[in-house]
């Protein structure tokens, strides 16, 4: 029996989420929701808990307390089938985490075959479609070590998309990339956003957040400090912490005081 929440109208709904690692409190009560089709960018200084928040959305981190409801399924329910729930949520990691012993094509096929039990021909067709979508159809038979960081990350995106997720999580997807490769990955993400994919993106790319996001969330010290449109949060931040952070990010050589 899969526990179904009443609030099926949200893609993600988080209520009073707390997460501690030992004595260290990383998330101190997060309330927030993402609607279907929305692109939400989470920004904030390192250590603010934004990656932990993202990882709680597919339960890679187990929340200490609080409720996480994704696609109408309460993940924090004791009897939830977490493997089934994760199928609907794609995740893209900072370090790509491609499977190094498999080609790009096999990377995109393995979960389709093993989890969704698609037959080989169908899995391969879907894999090729998605690799084409992210612009690396010609690299199907390359191993991850033979690909650039930008290409690896795009394979990782294809791998997640092949599972037909209703929601995509991006955990600093461009932070490990050489600067000249960032654009390729952001272009793919922008395309996804335009196609109406629900996306939750932890990022330091302010230009991407400003141009693509429907909403920007600023986190600091384990709480959400500001939540609004990019114009509000990046363009005219009201909170002092947001202002300080943005000043540092947008003008790194600037020193306060």
């Amino acid at each position, binding site marked *: 029996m899969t526990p179904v929440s009443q609030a099926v109208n949200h893609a993600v709904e988080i209520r009073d989420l707390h997460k501690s690692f030992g004595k260290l409190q990383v998330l101190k009560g997060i309330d927030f929701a993402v609607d279907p089709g929305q692109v939400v960018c989470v920004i904030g200084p390192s250590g603010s808990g934004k990656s932990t928040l993202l990882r709680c959305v*597919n339960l*890679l981190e187990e929340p200490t307390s609080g409720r996480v409801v994704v696609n109408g399924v309460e993940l924090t329910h004791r009897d939830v089938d977490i*493997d*089934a729930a*994760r*199928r609907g*949520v*794609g*995740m893209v*990691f900072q*370090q790509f*985490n*491609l*499977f*190094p*012993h498999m080609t790009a094509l096999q990377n995109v096929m*393995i*979960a389709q075959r*093993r*989890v*969704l039990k698609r037959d080989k021909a169908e899995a391969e067709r879907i894999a090729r479609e998605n690799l084409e979508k992210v612009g690396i159809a010609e690299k199907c038979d390359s191993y991850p*070590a033979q690909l650039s960081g930008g290409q690896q990350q795009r394979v*990782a995106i294809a*791998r*997640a998309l092949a*599972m037909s997720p209703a929601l995509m999580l991006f955990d600093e997807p461009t932070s490990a990339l050489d600067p000249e490769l960032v654009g390729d990955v952001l272009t793919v993400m922008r395309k996804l956003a335009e196609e109406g994919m629900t996306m939750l993106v932890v990022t330091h790319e302010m230009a991407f957040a400003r141009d693509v996001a429907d909403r920007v969330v600023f986190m600091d010290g384990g709480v959400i400090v500001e939540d609004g449109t990019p114009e509000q949060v990046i363009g005219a931040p009201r909170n002092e912490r947001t202002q300080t952070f943005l000043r540092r990010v947008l003008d790194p050589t600037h020193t306060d005081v």
Partner: protein
Amino acid sequence: MTDQPKTAGPAPDGVTPLRSGLSPRKRQQISRAVQYVVLAAVVVFLALTIEWGKLGENFTKGEVAAETLPALFTIALKNTIIYSVGGFVFAFLFGLLFALMRMSSVRPYRWIAVTYIEIFRGLPAVLIFLFILFLPLALPGFEVPGGTYGQGILGLAVVGSAYMAETLRAGLQAVPKGQMEAARSLGMSHTRSMVSIVIPQAIRIVIPPTTNQFVALLKDSSLVLFLGVSGEYVELTKFGNDMASTFANATPILVVGVTYLLVTIPLGYLASRLEKRQARGR
């Protein structure tokens, strides 16, 4: 004492190196010359003192060497390989099992694995073979399946699996955590992620050390000697020993030694090749 005393006056232009007595280059030459002299002295001494005729007669007697054939290969080497490969296969399977148990979230499994590994890594291999030899006394009516082969393979598997467990655990832990996370985020179960993603990578990582372990196991297969095997079950060492007694001549021991090296040296070479290839990849 080898410190260079500083010259009294500073060099006026600061170019002349501070040096007195021998230059480092000179000292190196002298040191090397001394080493060559020592080596030559030892060689001359051995050449004069050893009775080469007798040594040759005892270790490299052609007729005796010829007597070892073809049984050397058709029986002895064949059995050494059967014992080692059989022992290795079981050592690998049980090693993997103990490695997984050692990393299990079920605490008693961890205890069992740790106890097993600590005990059988700490015991001399000979002792384990003696245990197996006396097993029927302790357990009347019990017989190791597979007879003599079974006993030899069991002994090697017990010794090997303890080492293999530690090697495989290291390999499993060397697979980055992100691999498991990526697999889980795609909806794979923990078991499925282990089987499809983590274990294949761990095995790749442990291939070089495992090859070395196979060589160690191959050498340990000589301990089958202690099981009192005979006839068609003898492996290389026992075979060499028996032949040496029969002819009252040490040649078979040398022949057997060379036969071991025919297998172990290429394997050792293979292991270091694999290690280098792995260092380049990734």
